[in-house]
């Protein structure tokens, strides 16, 4: 509790004690009403002084219809009508409710911030052989900083010495630690787990990943959702409307009764009007919606999904069409050996080994994937006479045998016809001493979670999934059918992608949203054209973080479905709160108008509803 809350708590306790004492006292002793009034004034002023003050100030500032005014009028009204105890009690319970709200909001604010707590407090630098802790903001580019086990990496940089494992879960939601050695890039926000490392910074703190993410998440609640704007607008008309209704309730029925020759019963109607005022307070509505969204965004970011605004979370829940970029989004975007077909007399391992040896000197992506697939260290001594045959491949002598590895043209050149393989992907043919030995298929591979991600999206209510790619038709269709994509558009130029997105935008109804998922590098125009742009952020890719509305920190397509689930849940909580609060309010208003609801029900309708709504909103934090 902060100072203000403690002060409020004190005055609440004092006035409860006073109120009880006075009530008990009056139960046994009969005193004139003037004296009774004076006695009740003590707890009333203690608890209601600042509300009264604010109400008066509000009137001077022409802000008549705020809740302070409502409470002041309601309680003063009750006291004027001789209901001293009711008046004090209403004020007291209002203040208890306010305190409750303040504590609840503070708490959820804290627990959400804790989820996103990746801000490093200091950086260690070496000054004259001694480690000194300084503010990360003061570290210049190129400074060497030391990160000990258990500490957060404060600034982006390159490891100059030491090796360690890093916990990136605060950034990516990925719990598997990754290892890092000297020469590796390291991004801020990771937690160093095992060994001390020295890092040379490559960015100032303000431009480091951690600052960018914090900035993004903190600003996310600035972009308000439609539900939030709706409620704010609603409250703007609602409060004065209720005040006029209360005024009408206080005066019209008695006047009508008077005209028709009955007793006007002023006090009955004024009390009803006051009850009406207490019920009407709009705060439960206004608070619970941004709180739910904030919880949803917090929940998402703890799972490695950065959402740039409440509005995007809202749109995501209404997404019916999702378009994907292929390379780097649904596939890994790196080439891997997917199949090996040795001829009779050769084993798969031997074929791969010889191909890897032959390609040893080359840094072509294909060669790299061969070497990666082989996995063992290559003994350079075994290789000699490496010749690169431009546009064809490589020939080299390995362990005394001439190994030729390359495309089909190379085989033809060697006089080896009819060896063509019809697999999809890039094919490396291998000949040993002019005898065809087999082929190795290299292709971009689908991410492990892509298939499950598409299925999950469908169960989350997505109507259509589309894959857009610049790749050839054959490859694109194979991948699409592997992972269950509905529609494939292949051989597209970047501009064509925008056109495809436009087509769907024009076709779909306003309420159905379109999301585009890309790797953020060449998809910027499409990302911004779609209702929701989702980028595979990679660890700290600036382009992606800038262009997209939602960033998946660990490139996992399954996170799209998770993000949708979070958004749907958040929105359902928002809707529950809106419906619940409005329903209770309107029922109580109706009951208050006809005299069934008394002050106590009125207080529940105000404070109780608010507290329930706040508690409900905090559910958005967990999935």
């Amino acid at each position, binding site marked *: 509790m902060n100072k*203000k809350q403690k002060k409020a708590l004190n005055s609440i306790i004092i006035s409860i004690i006073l109120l009880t004492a006075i009530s008990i006292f009056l139960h046994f002793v009969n005193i004139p009403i003037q004296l009774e009034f004076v006695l009740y004034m003590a707890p009333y002023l203690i608890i209601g002084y*600042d509300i009264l*003050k*604010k109400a008066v*100030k*509000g009137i001077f*500032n*022409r*802000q008549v219809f*705020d*809740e302070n005014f409502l409470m002041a009028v309601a309680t003063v009204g009750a006291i004027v009508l001789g209901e001293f105890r009711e008046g004090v009690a209403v004020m007291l319970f209002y203040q208890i409710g*306010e305190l409750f*709200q*303040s504590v609840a*909001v503070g708490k959820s*604010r804290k627990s*959400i911030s804790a989820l996103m707590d990746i801000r490093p407090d200091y950086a260690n630098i070496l000054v004259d052989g001694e480690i000194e802790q300084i503010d990360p903001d003061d570290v210049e580019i190129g400074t060497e900083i030391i990160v000990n086990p258990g500490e957060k990496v404060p600034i982006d940089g390159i490891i100059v010495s030491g090796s360690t494992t890093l916990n990136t879960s605060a950034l990516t939601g990925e719990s598997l630690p990754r290892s890092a050695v000297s020469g590796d890039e390291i991004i801020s926000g990771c937690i160093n787990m095992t060994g001390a490392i020295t890092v040379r910074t490559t960015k100032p703190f303000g431009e480091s990943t951690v600052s960018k993410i914090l900035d993004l998440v*903190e*600003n996310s*609640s*600035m*972009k*308000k959702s439609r539900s939030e704007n709706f409620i*704010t607008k609603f*409250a703007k008309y609602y409060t004065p409307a209720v005040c006029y209704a209360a005024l009408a309730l206080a005066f019209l029925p008695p006047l009508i009764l008077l005209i028709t020759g009955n007793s006007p019963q002023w006090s009955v109607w004024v009390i009803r009007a006051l009850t009406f005022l207490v019920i009407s307070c*709009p*705060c439960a509505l*206004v*608070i619970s919606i*941004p*709180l739910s969204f*904030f919880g949803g965004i917090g929940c998402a970011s703890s799972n490695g999904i950065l959402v740039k605004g409440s509005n995007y979370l809202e749109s995501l829940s209404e997404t019916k069409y999702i378009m994907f970029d292929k390379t780097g989004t649904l596939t890994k975007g790196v080439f891997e050996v997917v199949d090996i077909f040795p001829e009779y007399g050769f084993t798969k391992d031997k074929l791969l080994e010889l191909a890897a040896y032959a390609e040893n000197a080359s840094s072509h992506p294909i060669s790299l994937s061969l070497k990666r697939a082989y996995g063992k260290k290559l003994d350079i001594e075994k290789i000699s006479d490496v010749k690169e045959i431009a546009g064809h491949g490589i020939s080299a002598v390995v362990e005394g045998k001439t190994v030729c590895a390359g495309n089909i043209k190379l085989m033809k050149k060697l006089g080896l016809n009819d060896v063509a393989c019809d697999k999809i992907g890039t094919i490396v043919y291998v000949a040993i001493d002019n005898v065809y030995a087999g082929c190795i298929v290299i292709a971009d591979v689908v991410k492990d979670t892509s298939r499950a991600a598409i299925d999950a999206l469908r169960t989350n209510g997505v109507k259509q999934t589309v894959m857009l790619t610049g790749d050839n038709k054959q490859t694109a269709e194979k991948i699409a059918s592997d992972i269950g994509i509905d529609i494939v558009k292949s051989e597209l130029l970047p501009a064509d992608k925008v056109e495809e997105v436009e087509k769907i935008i024009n076709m779909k109804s306003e309420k159905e949203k379109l999301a585009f998922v890309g790797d953020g590098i060449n998809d910027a125009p499409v990302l911004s054209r779609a209702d929701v742009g989702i980028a595979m952020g990679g660890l700290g890719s600036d382009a992606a973080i800038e262009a997209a509305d939602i960033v998946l920190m660990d490139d996992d397509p399954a996170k799209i479905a998770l993000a949708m689930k979070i958004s749907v849940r958040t929105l359902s909580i928002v809707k529950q709160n809106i419906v619940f609060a409005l329903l209770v309010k309107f029922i109580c208003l109706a009951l208050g108008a006809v005299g069934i609801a008394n002050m106590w029900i009125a207080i529940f309708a105000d404070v109780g509803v608010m507290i329930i709504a706040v508690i409900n909103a905090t559910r958005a934090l967990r999935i």
Partner: protein
Amino acid sequence: MKKTYKVEVDCANCAAKMEEAVKKTEGVKDAALSFMTLKLKVEFEEGADIEAVMQNALKNCKKVEDDCEIFL
């Protein structure tokens, strides 16, 4: 020109009113206040005297909600 300020305000409805008041202040192009993070982001008109604009904005806020603070 955009700047972010820390604010203090107790209720969500009051925060909405403060935002409205800042938006209406002369020299302010747009403003957004998040009750959850208690931060106010102000976009100023070109060539506006930021200091003076924010003083006025604070004054306007005090009018709609006495119990609030913008940390300038």
